[in-house]
């Protein structure tokens, strides 16, 4: 089966991997629940280091943020760097139960994606995200962070919207 009728199938679907890894009968479940539990336990184990990792990323973000405040001439590359760090932070928190870190990282990543106006309001919004992430990690706000998490999301959302509309 090809994308379109004039496309050329150059290799049929290969069952080599299936044959190599088959261990049970063909009607057996392909998914092993016990193995999944083991893998989930492994994620939890790795997650014990997560706050340290996240604090490293946060420290790097804070450094770039301070540099942005001090050297406005480097605005564009520093915003790009902040965007990249926010993207990395966003991609990890949820794996270890820190969904709120992912949410804040996502908000900062989107805010900085298209570049940002060079003004104090931009700095304020970035700073608010840095402070919010620090608070979440310091207070160990797991999951969506409950009521405090809702307030953080709402506050960042409003601040971001105001600045985005102005620019």
């Amino acid at each position, binding site marked *: 089966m090809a994308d379109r009728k004039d496309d*050329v199938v150059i290799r049929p679907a290969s069952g080599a991997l299936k044959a*190599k890894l088959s261990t049970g009968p063909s009607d057996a479940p392909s998914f092993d629940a*016990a193995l999944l539990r083991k893998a989930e336990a492994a994620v939890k184990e790795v997650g014990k280091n997560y706050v340290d990792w996240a604090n490293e990323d946060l420290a790097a973000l804070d450094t770039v943020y301070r540099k942005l405040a001090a050297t406005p001439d480097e605005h564009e590359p520093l915003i790009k760097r902040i965007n990249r760090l926010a993207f*990395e932070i966003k991609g990890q928190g949820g794996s270890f139960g820190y969904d709120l870190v992912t949410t804040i990282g*996502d908000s900062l990543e989107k805010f900085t994606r298209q570049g940002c106006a060079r003004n104090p309001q931009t700095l304020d919004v970035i700073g608010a995200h840095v402070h919010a992430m620090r608070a979440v990690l310091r207070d160990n706000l797991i999951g969506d962070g409950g009521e405090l998490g809702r307030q953080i999301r709402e506050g960042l959302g409003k601040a971001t919207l105001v600045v985005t509309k102005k620019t």
Partner: protein
Amino acid sequence: MTTQPRFGLEKLSVLIVDDNRHMRALVQSILHALGIKAIREAGDAAEAFKELQHFSADVIIIDWHMEPLDGLDFVRLVRTAKDSPNPYVPMIMLSGHTEHQRICDARDAGVNEFLANPISAKSLYARIISIIEHPRPFIRTKTYFGPDRRRQNLGPPRWSEERRKETPGGKNKDAASLSSSDIDALMRK
């Protein structure tokens, strides 16, 4: 009495390509727990391409956002470079970007599966099983080389409640187009 699962992953070999060491550690720990022993890591696309010259990976798990070559560049390199050791190797793309266009771009570069960050053990396991269970033919067009982009709509994974509730023949018909079902399949959690 426990049923022997259909697949054991002990013999699977996997190459992880990610410039973020924390993500590599996370993916590796999941793979280890799933029983996979042959795991190699690379911190960038060029290193990964070199690694492939002497490591025969059954599956490559690759991050999209890397520099100087990104994950898409790497996928295209593996699929189309003259000196590619294995243009047919199944690839799983990890990315924090989940917009429709991004997923289409990944599919059009030749990835087999797309996995949105933050990942979970279940989502990664599901993608690996999908690659084993549903191999696809490889096609060549004027502008594309890679796994057939038209998928079957396979419905929920075999282990899920929704799948058990399905009536035979209900949702498992061949999908006729690339449309939203392909995107859903790529994004299936």
